């Protein structure tokens, strides 16, 4: 996997993407959400608390916060950020008719694709990390009963759901020739998966939908928040890493069949 990434190109791509407007908007959206969410939770209506309690067996302010933070804030932003960051990879160059120019340089199409996707993943992880650390430092003063360690554990799992969205949209885009179709398809696909993520909590009989959905594995830990172990966290991270690698692998496979 690492052999396919052209590291000097990756480094340049990463620093260019990190300084881009896309990435700055992304950081702003994430930090703004972090600032705004406690406002939503000042007086949670009893029915919200009751619903959260029935899903996760725990209705404390912290668990309500985690639900709102992951479901309302991060999952919704991931849909957009994934597509924004990576739905243009290769498709963009092809639309501008400059793909041949890139590929005439000593870089294989697979490396080009994998390096750009990896850069997008790392930029996403960068802003997600900044947000998680800012949350860990500020939220104890803003949310009653805030548990920094649990928050970091949840964030470290959910981070890989976010990077999966980035990988998935870059991989799906390879099936499209137009930028707009690629962006649309990525958004719709991630929207569907994210929308179904909580379904197994609402009805346990629908667990199959969850088992097949990476975004469910990113939040399945919600029912175990009271007795977290390293095993709970690490197993989910590994599972999500597998999904990430599978998505990139699919993209690489598509790119290798590209006709220029």
């Amino acid at each position, binding site marked *: 996997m690492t052999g396919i990434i052209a590291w000097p190109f990756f480094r340049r791509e990463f620093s260019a993407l990190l300084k881009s*407007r*896309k990435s700055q*908007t992304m950081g702003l959206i994430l930090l703004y959400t972090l600032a705004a969410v406690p*406002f*939503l*939770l*000042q*007086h*949670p*209506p*009893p*029915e*919200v608390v*009751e*619903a959260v309690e*029935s*899903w996760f067996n725990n209705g404390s302010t912290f668990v309500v916060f985690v639900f*709102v933070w992951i479901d*309302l804030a991060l999952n919704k932003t991931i849909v*957009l950020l994934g597509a*924004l960051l990576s739905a243009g990879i290769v498709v963009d160059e092809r*639309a*501008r008719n400059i793909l041949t120019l890139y590929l005439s340089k000593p870089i294989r199409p697979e490396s080009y694709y994998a390096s750009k996707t990896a850069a997008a993943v790392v930029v996403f992880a960068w802003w997600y990390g900044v947000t998680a650390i800012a949350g860990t430092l500020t939220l104890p003063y803003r949310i009653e009963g805030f548990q920094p360690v649990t928050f970091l554990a949840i964030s470290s799992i959910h981070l890989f759901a976010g990077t999966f969205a980035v990988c998935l949209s870059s991989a799906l885009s390879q099936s499209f020739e137009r*930028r*707009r*179709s690629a*962006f*649309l*398809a990525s*958004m*719709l696909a991630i929207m*569907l998966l994210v929308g179904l993520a909580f*379904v197994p909590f*609402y*009805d346990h*009989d*629908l667990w199959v939908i969850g088992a097949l959905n990476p975004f469910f594995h990113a939040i399945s830990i919600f029912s175990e928040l009271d007795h977290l172990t390293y095993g709970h966290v690490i197993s989910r991270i590994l599972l999500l890493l597998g999904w990430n690698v599978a998505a990139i692998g699919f993209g690489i496979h598509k790119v290798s069949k590209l006709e220029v």
Partner: protein
Amino acid sequence: MGRLSAYRLYEWSFAKRPDHLYAIAYTASLAVFTSLALPHMPSVIPRFFQRALQIGTWADIALFNLYAATYVITLLVGALDLLRVWILPVEEGYLSLYLSKPISPTEYLRARLGPILANGILIALASQAAVGLAVWHMIGPFDRAQFLWSSGLIVVLILFILCLYNYLFLFLRESYYAMVISLAVWTVTLGPGALYVYRPDIFSPVARAFVFPANLLWYQSPIQTYGIAVTWSLLAGSVLLLWLAKIKLGRAPLG
């Protein structure tokens, strides 16, 4: 046959894309899936909707979610299509090619924008038809007059927002900012709904009227009284925005 009828036909066929069919199929499958799965949800779900959003029956809960789906998906497809009016031609440098032919900016706008708006309306109507059929047959009856009013208002609102996007996009030169604007409009129109669930205390009775799409289910009789006025104002707003777009495009520097 007018002078430009061949060109207009070309624009119509050029505007047709499989994406539109995929979008309709996507909303239709969402409607079917929601109608299938929703009644199997535990009782905490209807209780939640009843208390948090004052929406009681399964049919209304399904309609609430699917109205939002039609709205979001149609606007997403429409916004991406609208890039073809100005931003993409500028980015990819072929706008002057069009306008150097004997096609005036107004004729170009009419020929290119018309099919895009028509496709948007078609997607919204087809999605709403799928929503109505799925919910009616798989969950149960709802107020039919109310559903027709709501669908009409959603379609007109979508038309208005597409005209707004189109006008705003004429000020931009990059598709990136267009996406930011689309995102902002989504947040502004759907934000009150999300906020209302968690902070109903900050909503005055007037502000409550803007909690879209729950307001379509709440105000059954007011909608039948004011629906026509709302429809006409949105249509008038759309016409105004189209006229502004025409002026703006007429003055735009080419190149």
